[in-house]
């Protein structure tokens, strides 16, 4: 069976506010898909509808072809999920919490015991297995939650910003855990607003903003779309730089195909051409004595596309 997730016209309205607007998205096969978007874009709303925590105003969400709205029990049977930061009954230990999760999933006691060892080892919580969850930090609880999501070795894993609230070490560890989850016949759908996390972990990315899907493509295609011709460069100046100066002395440099202001002392250029053109642009800008203090190719291809698409939406 090929794992799949699908949103068909998935829409959520809260009064007059549309949090998710007719999302049509089909993820099919074993891979990790990043669900990117700024805060309030509609990522969590979509994932909550996939797990039937909230109900669509229109449309339907399918897990492995089964509607989460029509049969949440069957749909979630092959899915492990982590939405927001769930709390576990504080007096339970990780072993008991996973036992409860396994029991409710219909796993046999010996399967639960064996998988508990594996998943707690995976999230580095083995030494806390018999301590009460109520005493754990947020990061430790999140690891137990991830372990619970993986307990039944599901084909579909839905993770909603799994590294939220973790310290930098925790973030790195969660990233490594998610990378470890990528295996044959497993589909991972992970929301994040951390671009580097998506670049490090995911094979494909779906970008959402204002409740609408902006694009869905593989990371390699995203890179191709941007790096084939244009490069984004961040400029920093000693002091404030006027719009006139940007227009007359920066935008007119050969090779520069676009200029936008980031703030008073920073601007972003789009340079069309390869490294040679970049070098020539830098020389021209330095010669113009504009007080340039740095010239730095910006971000990954994904970040660039992210900013472009988000700014289109804002425009």
């Amino acid at each position: 069976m090929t794992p799949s997730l699908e949103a068909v016209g998935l829409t959520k309205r809260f009064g007059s506010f549309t949090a998710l607007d007719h999302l049509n998205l089909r993820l099919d096969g074993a891979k990790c898909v990043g669900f990117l978007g700024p805060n309030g874009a509609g990522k969590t709303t979509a994932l909550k509808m996939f797990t039937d925590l909230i109900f669509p105003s229109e449309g339907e969400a399918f897990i492995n072809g089964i509607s989460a709205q029509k049969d949440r029990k069957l749909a979630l049977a092959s899915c492990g999920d982590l939405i927001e930061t769930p709390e576990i009954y504080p007096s339970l230990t990780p072993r008991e919490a996973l036992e409860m999760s396994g029991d409710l999933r219909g796993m046999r006691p010996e399967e639960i015991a064996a998988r508990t060892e594996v998943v707690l080892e995976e999230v580095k919580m083995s030494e806390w297995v018999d301590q009460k969850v109520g005493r754990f930090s947020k990061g430790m609880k999140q690891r137990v939650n991830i372990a619970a999501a993986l307990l039944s070795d599901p084909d579909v894993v839905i993770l909603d910003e799994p590294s939220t609230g973790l310290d930098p070490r925790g973030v790195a560890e969660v990233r490594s855990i998610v990378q470890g989850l990528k295996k044959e016949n497993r589909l991972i759908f992970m929301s994040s607003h951390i671009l580097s996390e998506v670049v490090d972990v995911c094979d494909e990315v779906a970008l959402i903003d204002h409740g609408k899907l902006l694009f869905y493509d593989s990371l390699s295609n995203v890179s191709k779309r941007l790096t084939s011709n244009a490069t984004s460069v961040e400029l920093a100046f000693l002091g404030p730089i006027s719009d006139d100066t940007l227009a007359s002395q920066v935008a007119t440099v050969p090779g520069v195909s676009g200029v936008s202001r980031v703030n008073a002392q920073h601007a972003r250029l789009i340079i069309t051409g390869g490294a040679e053109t970049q070098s020539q642009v830098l020389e021209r800008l330095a010669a113009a004595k504009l007080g340039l203090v740095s010239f730095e190719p910006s971000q990954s291809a994904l970040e660039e596309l992210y900013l472009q698409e988000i700014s289109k939406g804002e425009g």
Partner: protein
Amino acid sequence: MTTVAPLAPAPGAPTTIGQVPATLEQAFLLSRYQLRDYLRSRRFVLMMSIVAVIGAILTFVLSYFHTSDTVQGLTASSNAFYGSFWAGGVGVVIIFSGIIFGGDAIAGEFQNKTGYFLMGLPIRRASVYVGKFLAALAASIVAVLFYLAILIANGAFYLGSDALPFSLGESFAIALLYLLALLGAVFLFSSMFKNSLYAVLVVAVLFLFGFSIIQALITSLVKIEPWFIITYAQNVISYPFLSTLPAHMTTTTGPRGLRTTTYNPTYLEGFAIMAGYFLLTAVAGLFFFEREEFT
């Protein structure tokens, strides 16, 4: 809007480990863990402390005033003893356990975010609701049994071999029905809120004095039988200890010709009120919970 045809339903069972149990089985499984959580919680210690304090006061009063005519009268027979101390006290114990174990049972799932853990599992909301209800019921029964044990210990001291009359068993069964009805109502209020504090406050205010005040007002001002108020049915818990059941309706004329009417439920009415409350509130509570979103 682009319409995309859904993927074909997955053939066969999921490849994931395990075969998800039936809805009722999941409810029982969940109740086991929920009860474990209750028994280890501070709220359980609080509830047991409340019962222990009530029991300690009762034991002290009985032993200190055992020579007084009143106490002598109460300890003269098991019906008099349990009619006063069991029937009078168990209603309070049930109300407190309902507030403590049920007040935030559903609201807490939203506020404490434990619902996100549970509802991420392949489980129907009905299983969660029923499972939590069963756990609250079991924890409340433990509290009621503790109160009963204190009374029986005192009864054994004062009544000897007459400490366990059959009427106590009957009254205990009625008390359990009252507990079911009260928990049903408490769960309904709990499922109407996403904030534990509001849920507990509303339940506490209503059951500790709200219903009693409404009952008194209805009886004295509107002059109708308050058959629709759950606490009215509580009176029947004491009936097994009475040789003659109280009159259903009594009208007395006081000073200046002021007529006062008091009502007592019949057995049938009491059972009907309790069963009705249980059924209606269970359905309504589940209805609310099924529609509540984890936003």
